């Protein structure tokens, strides 16, 4: 991996970590406001759920590599190298194709929420949900890239070694 790619990945990891830390801190504010100051804050729960959504899809878009996902690889590791390449190619095309097919409808689902704001904080919900679009586009791009690399003779397991 190039130095730039490594730096970007490190940055993406820090953003994910910061989102999670913020969620944790917000949750503590919620507990504190309720039990210590006896004045429950109403915005905290919504903020936590928003941050949680972002932790998940940000992480899946930019942080998790092929190996970080839960996979059933009993068969995959047992087959020959060329079969493995075929497996990886079919997976990559199916994932990119499926997500791409659903992208227009997903886009209209998310943008539909332009008219709605969250109940307490009042953030536009299309902004809250937009991270799913980011995730969908990132997954499509990543798997097209992966398919292209495999077709060009790349080893499907190389990325995994580069990001242990």
């Amino acid at each position, binding site marked *: 991996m190039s130095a730039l790619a490594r730096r970007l990945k490190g940055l993406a990891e820090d953003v994910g970590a910061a989102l999670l830390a913020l969620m944790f801190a917000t949750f503590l504010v919620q507990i504190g406001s309720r*039990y210590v100051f006896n004045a429950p804050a109403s915005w905290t*729960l919504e903020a936590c759920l928003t941050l949680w959504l972002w932790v998940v899809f940000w*992480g899946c878009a930019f942080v998790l590599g092929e190996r970080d996902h839960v996979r*059933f690889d009993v068969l995959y590791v047992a087959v020959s190298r060329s079969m493995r390449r075929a*497996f990886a190619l*079919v997976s990559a095309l199916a*994932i990119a194709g499926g997500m791409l097919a*659903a992208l227009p409808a997903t886009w209209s689902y998310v943008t539909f929420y332009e008219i709605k704001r969250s109940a307490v904080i009042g953030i536009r919900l299309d902004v809250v949900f937009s991270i799913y679009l980011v995730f969908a586009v990132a997954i499509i791009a990543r798997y097209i890239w992966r398919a292209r690399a495999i077709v060009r003779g790349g080893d499907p397991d190389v990325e995994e070694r580069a990001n242990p």
Partner: protein
Amino acid sequence: MTLAFAACVVALFLLAGIGAPIALSMIVAAIVYLAMKGQDLGLAAEQIIQGLYDSFVILAVPLFIVAANLMNAGTISERLLQFCVAIVGRFKGGLGHVNVVASMIFAGMSGSAVADAVGIGRVIINMMTKDGRYTPGYAAAITAASSTIGPIIPPSIPMVLYALVSDASIGYLFLGGIVPGVIMGAVLMALNAMMARRYEVPLERPVPLREIPAVTVRAFPALMMPVILLVGIYGGVTTPTEAAAIAAFYALIVAAFLYRALNVATIRGVMRESARSSASVGLIIGAALIFNYIVASENIPAQVASAMQGLDISPLAFLLAINVLFLVLGCLLDASTIILVIIPLFIPTCRALGIDLVHFGIVSVVNCMIGLITPPYGVLLFVINATTGIPLRAIIAAIWPFIGVLIVALLIMILVPDIILWLPRRFGYTG
């Protein structure tokens, strides 16, 4: 079953079978289903987003992950282990017992078997294999087996997931896990004692009694954690989700200020690691939600229920059959996938047969945890192999007796529901 649903299942099995990430396979299979049904493809995104955005309960999952990683980075796990060595290390098969007891206490602080295996596993395995007293395979196997107690004694991430799909009360599920967790510990210690006698494992040098108070003081803040959690939840002070945040906060304070084992760099590492695991689990939860939506709209669980009633099967026969099925699936699938995707298929059947959902939940979670150590796909075996370098073959060769005694414990829990339900009932559970 419609053609669209058949295509969905085929797509899922095909993609997951050739090694695509399971969560993404579920999403793609759901899109295949929606396309064949001529439904809005945006429904996949809608179910995933709303499912994750609407459930307060799910927040416990990332918080328990943070708590466990903080405890491991903050030497809390290590101190706990030293305490256990001082208390039970002196008996025959001492370090094996230490392993189990430490896992049981750790289980009261963390909700994840993998965190348990990573946290105390490596240290105890080093202690056991030093001087060749235990074979690496045996040390790894008992560590893997005792880690399965982690999510049985509360808190528990798998039980949170089960509560999500079954609507059973998390509080009562947590309570229901305490006695089964102790039983699992007991059968593992019995097996260990037997093995130690048969192979004549030499005794440890006992920690002198006068050193015990000092070791206890060092471990005391760690030992208080399960107490704080249980009192918090069952004193009615906090919800289980809040307890998860309090556990993480307590671990942070103790590790950073009392033990001085954390600095900015380690906390950054802990948060990075936790964000990574949270994202991976979160995507599985989201993907399982869209899949469950499809299964529900195909009315599959109700069909399973009526088929079972048509068979006129007794509740006990059903429970035994389902447990055999879960054990077989556990050899191949990840526990969270079984809990989120397979278990919901059978919830209506349980209701129809009058099986208590807390009883069913605990039995299923125990079963799935045994699945974590059954080859060929056993996450705990992989984790221990990765952290210690002990070959999988050696671990698998030694794991069978442990799987055997845990299945015996599972069978007892299936046959005697009162073992599980006694404690929740004392706290007002009416099931």
